[in-house]
């Protein structure tokens, strides 16, 4: 499993910048982020160089922040690679709650998709069994080096 930092942010000017400011002050690097937004609030999801530190710093600054387990899959930076993964999820009858993707400079992990799955704890083994490479700490180490 892979750690995502999830932050609740009210829709107020400058609030997001306060999050990035806290992380910058603590020298935490951002690999990816995605925001789900509504009229009143947004949910910021981030992949960062040091999730434990990021969570601690944000909490100290009165942000509602938690670490969330997500599934990280390297898909290859070429046409149809994400599709292959999504078809496999369909075959396995696994639903996606949300997802986002990003690219990196690392050769082995040049395109990564982050998935949050319905009943994630139960289905993740099914996913591994199907041959899809579910990544853990080795991915973060590589991203941090690249």
């Amino acid at each position, binding site marked *: 499993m892979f750690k995502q930092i999830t932050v609740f942010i*009210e829709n107020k000017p400058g609030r997001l910048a306060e999050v990035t400011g806290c992380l910058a002050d603590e020298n935490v690097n951002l690999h990816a982020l995605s925001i789900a937004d509504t009229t*009143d*609030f947004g*949910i910021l999801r981030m992949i960062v160089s040091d999730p434990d530190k990021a969570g601690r710093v944000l909490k100290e600054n009165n942000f509602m922040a*938690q670490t969330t387990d997500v599934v990280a899959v390297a898909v290859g930076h070429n046409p149809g690679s994400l599709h292959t993964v999504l078809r496999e999820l369909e075959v396995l009858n696994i639903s996606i709650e*949300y997802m986002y993707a990003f690219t990196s400079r690392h050769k082995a992990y040049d395109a990564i998709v982050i998935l*949050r799955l319905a009943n994630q704890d139960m289905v993740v083994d099914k996913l591994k069994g199907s041959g899809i490479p579910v990544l853990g700490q080795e991915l973060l180490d590589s991203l941090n080096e690249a």
Partner: protein
Amino acid sequence: MERYWNKTVETMNREQIQALQLEKLRVAVQNVYAHVPYYRKKMQEKGMVPDDIKTLDNLSDLPITTKQDLRNTYPFSMFAVPMENIVRIHASSGTTGKQTVVGYTRRDLDVWAECVARCFVMGDADTSSRVQVAYGYGLFTGGLGVHYGAEKLGATVIPASSGNTQRQITMMIDFGVTHLCCTPSYALNIAEVMREMGHTKDDLKLVAGSFGAEPWSTGMRAEIESQLGLRAHDIYGLSEIMGPAVSHECRYQNGLHIWEDCFIAEITDPDTGEPVKEGAMGDLVITTINKEGIPLIRYKTRDICALNYETCECGRTHVRMSKPAGRTDDMLIIRGVNVFPSQIESVLLSIGEVQPHYQILVDRVNNLDTLTIEIELNDEMFSDNVKGIEEFEKNVSRQINSVLGVNAKIRLVEPKSITRSEGKAKRVIDRRNM
């Protein structure tokens, strides 16, 4: 073994209480008729003379006194003694109009301290207690009123006043404070700051507390008790009648004993003003029968409650008022439905995840009242997806609607974004009349 400050008075039987009340009421009515022209005029308009008071039932023939009467006689015209006999002035905050002023003779202050001392003993205090008074000191009756009662009892009093919360906690720990007196919202603020300072309730020696000056729900009580490790009693009062200690809860926390040798309590119908049948809810009306400075006849407190005349398990015979839901001034009318903020608090705190950090916003949009409740998000209600948070909001809204019959929009807000109280909490922002 139940302890009392004044066992003879606190446990006298109903016949004795009524005989005493009738005797004192007759004196009080004669006194205001003779010394307060405003009252004499009001009674004359009703065609009444003091001798018309023959039984306690005649009380309801007397005119009602309202806050407006006190404004009409601002500042001192309601006083029944010459100013040279007045030794202290207190005043209401005046947030809903001109402030109201009350005066006390030396004897009034003694009676007040006696009432407070009885409350403290009822709340488990004795001469070995260390009482931290974190009500504001000043024109507000909370600080000084409680202070002199605790001194009369012989407890060790720490006159902390409100504010400077970290220092409050340091004193509570270093001085081994056993009793805390403040508003319930400030008590919660203290608990929160204590945790932020790295302390737990085990660092405290608190046994009990007397919390008042604002309405609070039983859910709030449970929070205060568990967070500070004490038994939380409601203390009731208003400056017009005396100040804190008009009534107070005993250990059974099933109503607040009103000191009936000093006050006669009635409940009237909010619509007709007629007395309600025993045990029914309505407007609490109080007549002072042991007061010199500003004796009031049938003062409408604007608090809604019911009276219970049964003798309490604690042995006290003085009538119990139910925990007041709030002043009628604070009642919200949302599209014709009456709601007290404390009722909203009750519903919120019945939902396990919600902590008592909330704010109620009332607005008018396209001529329709809207009610929005902001609740601080915490770890238990957090979700990493929008659906989870929106479902939580909807669930709270559904419960508010099913219990109170009003539609409320629930908005979760970030931790610590709602201002913490150091005195009377500002729970409601009504923007309809701004």
